Every structure is written in structure tokens, then in C-alpha cells.
């Protein structure tokens, strides 16, 4: 498979009032064309920041201070703003979490879609409009000729997300970054949107970088999975391996936190104790050790490297290989 995106030892920092904060550290992964990779983790673990850094959209306070992002032969981290702008929307595009707030409320939908076409493909207003109508039909929007004149507020959340997808895919990008594309949607709509993304991916051959905290979405969509914790990659594997044999205690905790229909009624839903540390107080050693039931002295002192546990399965844990069956006895019996 042809390598499309390579993220190599990425470190991202933000300038704040309290000085420089490292938000993402030691993040590396590769994505082949046509493949889907998912980044999972709790809020604030750096998954959105990583995806925004690929687009070069970290804003004025954020910057990549170490590492490289290579895309299709060019090094994105060395590109000028103008070069990046030519890639955005044409080669790499993005779908955001909130379809309610991600569309401009005072510009008609057709114009918002056609704008991208006119910018990157040198098409006339009329041609761009026709392309936009076609694309809207492709993403399953009924009456696209009428809808292009509508404003975003006239559409439902699911429809708006379809518009976002149409907008992102209109220039046939090689890479689609989807930042929590279904989080703000109803469950039934979620399934439709995921199905649509899959179908369009098969037609266009685009690679997808999916950012989510929903393991259900991961299981549905991803080939490869990256688990992030406190700005670092803690485990990466193909989707089957990760679900069958997660190695990192954090990944295992996440798996256990999924509510299951066959769960005993009196059993309380599992949760990983504690909370994600803030960027200002990153723990020493392994960043997960204060919440880890397996932590030993070494975890507190030395930071583990991402080591290979099996072919294509890498874990950042001192206990890797010995972590089976943890958390099992942590469930609490609740008397009703």
C-alpha cells in the first residue's frame, strides 16, 4: 500500500499566559492511501490538536516544535502558509464535530460548497454550482437544487453533517480528517453518516483520519487504531488486535468502560478512576501511572518508550505483555 501520511515524533506546544505548554508529544503514525486510521482517547488527550496540526490550523498560539509531518511527498511542517492553503480543501480536507456551528449561518449552503471548488479548480460560478448540486445528491440530500439556496439553520443536524461531508469531499481530497464527525448526532443518524463516509471512501479511495472517543465508531470504521493519553500515543495496533488483545492498561480500561447489553443489571458501569492530568501537571515517568492499577515503582520514575509487542502492535508500557486480566476485579456489586 502506498504511504500517504507520515507523522514522525510530533511535538506541539501552545503559548499561554503560564508559559509554553506541550500539548502533544512523541506522536508517530503512518497512514496508507485508502486506509482508515482512528485516534481515540479522552477529551484533552491531544487528538484534535494532532489532526489540526496536519492541516496547519493550530492558530497563532500553537506550533509544531519538533518532528515532521510528511504528506504525499512533501513535508507539511516545512510548508509556508501559502503552500498549505493550496493543499487545504483540495488534497486534505476536514469535517468537524459540530455541524451546527461549523457552517456559516449567513451564507447559503450552495455558496459555501461552491466556494471551495472555485478556489481550487478554477471553475466558473455556474460550473461550481452544478458540481455542488451533484455532490449534495451524492451525500444523500434530497432536492439539492433547492437546498443550495437554503441557509444552514433550515437543515437538521444530520443534514448539516452531510453538507459538511459534501464540502470536504468536493475536490476529491486524498486525505479526509474527520474530527468527531458523529459525536453531536443522534445514534440513528450516526450510523447513516458513518455508512456514507465508508461508501464515499470506497468510491474515491481517500484515506481517513478519524478522531473520536467512541470505540463503537472505531470498530465500525477503522483499519488501524491509535490510542492517545495525555498527549502521547500509548498503544497502536490494527483494529482486530486492539479489540481482541489490548495491552496497555489505559486501552483495557477504555474497553471495559463500554456499556454492554449483556452486562449484569446490578453491575455498576466501569470507569477508570481519576481524570486526565492537565498539561501543566504532567506526571513523571509513565503519564498514566497515577491511574494505573498495575503501576510499580519504575512507572513513576522512567518514561516507557513505544515498544513493539507484536507485528504492527506497539505499546508504551513497562508491563506490556503482562497486563492481561487487569481491571477484572474492580467492578462493584450494587445492591438494588
Amino acid at each position, binding site marked *: 500500500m502506498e504511504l500517504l501520511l507520515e507523522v514522525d515524533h510530533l511535538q506541539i506546544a501552545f503559548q499561554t499566559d503560564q508559559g509554553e505548554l506541550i500539548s502533544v508529544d512523541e506522536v508517530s503514525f503512518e497512514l496508507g492511501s485508502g486506509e482508515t486510521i482512528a485516534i481515540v482517547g479522552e477529551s484533552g488527550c491531544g487528538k484534535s490538536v494532532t489532526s489540526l496540526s496536519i*492541516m496547519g*490550523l493550530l492558530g497563532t498560539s500553537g506550533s509544531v516544535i519538533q518532528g515532521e509531518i510528511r504528506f504525499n511527498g512533501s513535508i507539511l511542517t516545512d510548508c509556508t502558509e501559502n503552500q498549505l*492553503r*493550496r*493543499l*487545504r*480543501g*483540495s488534497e486534505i*480536507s*476536514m469535517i*468537524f464535530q*459540530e455541524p451546527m*456551528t*461549523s*457552517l*456559516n*449561518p*449567513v*451564507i447559503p449552503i450552495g455558496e459555501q460548497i461552491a*466556494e*471551495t471548488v472555485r*478556489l*481550487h479548480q478554477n471553475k466558473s460560478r455556474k460550473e461550481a454550482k452544478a458540481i455542488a448540486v451533484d455532490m449534495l445528491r451524492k451525500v444523500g440530500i434530497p432536492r439539492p437544487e433547492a437546498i443550495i439556496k437554503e*441557509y444552514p*439553520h433550515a437543515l437538521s443536524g444530520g443534514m448539516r453533517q452531510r453538507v*459538511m461531508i459534501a*464540502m470536504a469531499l468536493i475536490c476529491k481530497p486524498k486525505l479526509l480528517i474527520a474530527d468527531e464527525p458523529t459525536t453531536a448526532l443522534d445514534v440513528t443518524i450516526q450510523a447513516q453518516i458513518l455508512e456514507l463516509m465508508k461508501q464515499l471512501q470506497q468510491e474515491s479511495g481517500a484515506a481517513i483520519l478519524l478522531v473520536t472517543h467512541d470505540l463503537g465508531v472505531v470498530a465500525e470504521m477503522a483499519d488501524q487504531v491509535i490510542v492517545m493519553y495525555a498527549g502521547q500515543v500509548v498503544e497502536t495496533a490494527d483494529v482486530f488486535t486492539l479489540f481482541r488483545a489490548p495491552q496497555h492498561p489505559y486501552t483495557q480500561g477504555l474497553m471495559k468502560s463500554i456499556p454492554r447489553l449483556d452486562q449484569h443489571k446490578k453491575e455498576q458501569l466501569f470507569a477508570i478512576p481519576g481524570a486526565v492530568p492537565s498539561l501543566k501537571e504532567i506526571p513523571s515517568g509513565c503519564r498514566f501511572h497515577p491511574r494505573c492499577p498495575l503501576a510499580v515503582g519504575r512507572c513513576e520514575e522512567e518514561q516507557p518508550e513505544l515498544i513493539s509487542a507484536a507485528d504492527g502492535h506497539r505499546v508504551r508500557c513497562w508491563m506490556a505483555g503482562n497486563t492481561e486480566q487487569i481491571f477484572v476485579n474492580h467492578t462493584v456489586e450494587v445492591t438494588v
Partner: protein
Amino acid sequence: MGHYIVRRIMIAIPVFFGITLLSFLIMNMAPGNPVDMLINPNIPKEMLELKKERLGLNDPLFVQYVKWLGGFLKGDLGYSFSSFAPVSQLIGERIGPTLLLASSSLLVGILIAVPVGVISAIHQNSKLDYIMTGLSFLGTSIPPFFLGLGLIYMMGIELKWLPTGGMKTLGGTGGISDIILHMILPVTVLGVTIAGKKVRYVRASMLDVLQQEYLRTARAKGLSEFIVTNKHALRNALIPIITVVGAEIPLLLGGSIIIEQVFQWPGIGQLTMEAILSRDYPTLMGLNLVAACIVLSTNLITDILYAAVDPRISYN
């Protein structure tokens, strides 16, 4: 929309009559009356009494109001007590210059405030931002009459670049360029005052919009920062500004009373001042009518414009 406008106009009618009644009462509560204001000690008391009787000033207030209202409904605003010219003619002669001055000042004010506010917001907390907000604070704080006098002294008396007052050169041929030359100083004063107040609104509104996620979407399309700011952000930021500008128009007319005095601008500001000083009741009532019409119609126009620029608002 049409339905909404009709309903708003129907509501405005009783409000309008309420305004005329209240202003009539308040006006009559002010000490003195038109006849006393003629201040000529040589006129005997009996003559004054006769004059009062003739002008109907001895009637009960209610009767006076109904008489005025009857005239108004027939399209007759009465005659000025001091110049004896028809009130409608007096106002008709003066309203043009005032509207010209007020609308030019508003335009200049907005043309200054929008770019300054936008640039200030984009470069938030930079030196440029501090300078611009500082200047806007200055523009708001300087009393217009003071700025007017300062400019007259500098540009008119010291440098002799611009005329110090009036609307046309006395004895001159007039013409548009002459009027524009006379407008520069008063429009600058009012424009600066308006811009000073509006810069903060534009800046705040723009700062709010710059946080919005749809700007990230726009950037993710590969649009340049110029398009992101001026197409995607500005259109949203200007929506709340419409209300603020709408609310400014009645204040602008009030403010022009003073500025018209300072620059001897032949508008309704001067007429208002003269009418108040001579307790010229019919003229004052006529001027109140004009003010009420302007306030009510700007409110309505503001609301209609709001719906026109913001697709999320509809009055149906």
C-alpha cells in the same frame, strides 16, 4: 414580512399619539409662555392679555391639545408664534440640511468605525489595538461642541482652510462643492463622535465572531485570511451593529442641535433652539412630530434590516 410591517405600523400609531400628548403636556409645564417671551416692557399688560386670548393660550390645556390635534389631522400644523410663518413651511425649509448633515455624519462614522473595529479585533491586544481603542475612547470622550470649537479655531481661523460656519458662502453662487466645503467640519465632529462609540461595538462583535467554528471550516477550505475575515467573519459581525447604528440615529438628531449652533448650520437644530427659547408651542409640537416619526421609523427599519441580513430571523 408584509404582514409584520403592517402590524408594526398599526402599533406605532397609538404610540405616536401618546408622544404628541405627552410632549404637549410637558411643553406647557415649562415656565413662561410665548407671550411673556416677547419681552417688550413697552407693551401694556392688557395687550398681552388680548394676545394670549387671541392665541388661545387661556383655554384649558385639554381644549388646546384637541384644537392642535384637529389641525394636525387636517394636515395643518399651525403658525409659529414668533415668526408667524406656517410651521410646516419652517420645518420643510430646515429638515433638508439636517438630514444631509446627519446622514453624512452617520456614513462617515460607520466608514471609520467598521475598518478600525475589525483591524483592532484581528490584532487583539497588540499595540495597534491599544492605539485604536485609545483613539476611540478619545473620540467618545471629547464633547462635540469642544471638538467643533477647536476645529473652527484651527482649520477656520488659524489655517483659514475651511469656512467656520453656515451652509453656503454668503453672497456666493452656492453649488455642491461649496456645500461640501461647509460640511467638512460639522461632519468631522459628528462622524468622530459616532465612530468613537461604534468602534467598540464593532470590535467586540468581531472578537465574538472570530471565536466561531465556522471560521475554522472556512480556513480548512484553503481560503485566504483576507476572505475568511472579510467574507465569513464580517458578514456575521455586522448583524448586531445594525441595531446599534439604528439606535444612534435619534441620538444623532439630538446631538445635531448643539453642532448646528456651533456651526450655524441652518437645520432643525437651530429652529428647535429658537422655538424652545421663545416658547413657540406650535413650532415645538411640529418638531416633536418630526422627531417621533424619525424614532419610530428607524426602529422599524432596524428590525426589518435585521431580518434582511440575518437569515435566521423571520417575522412570519
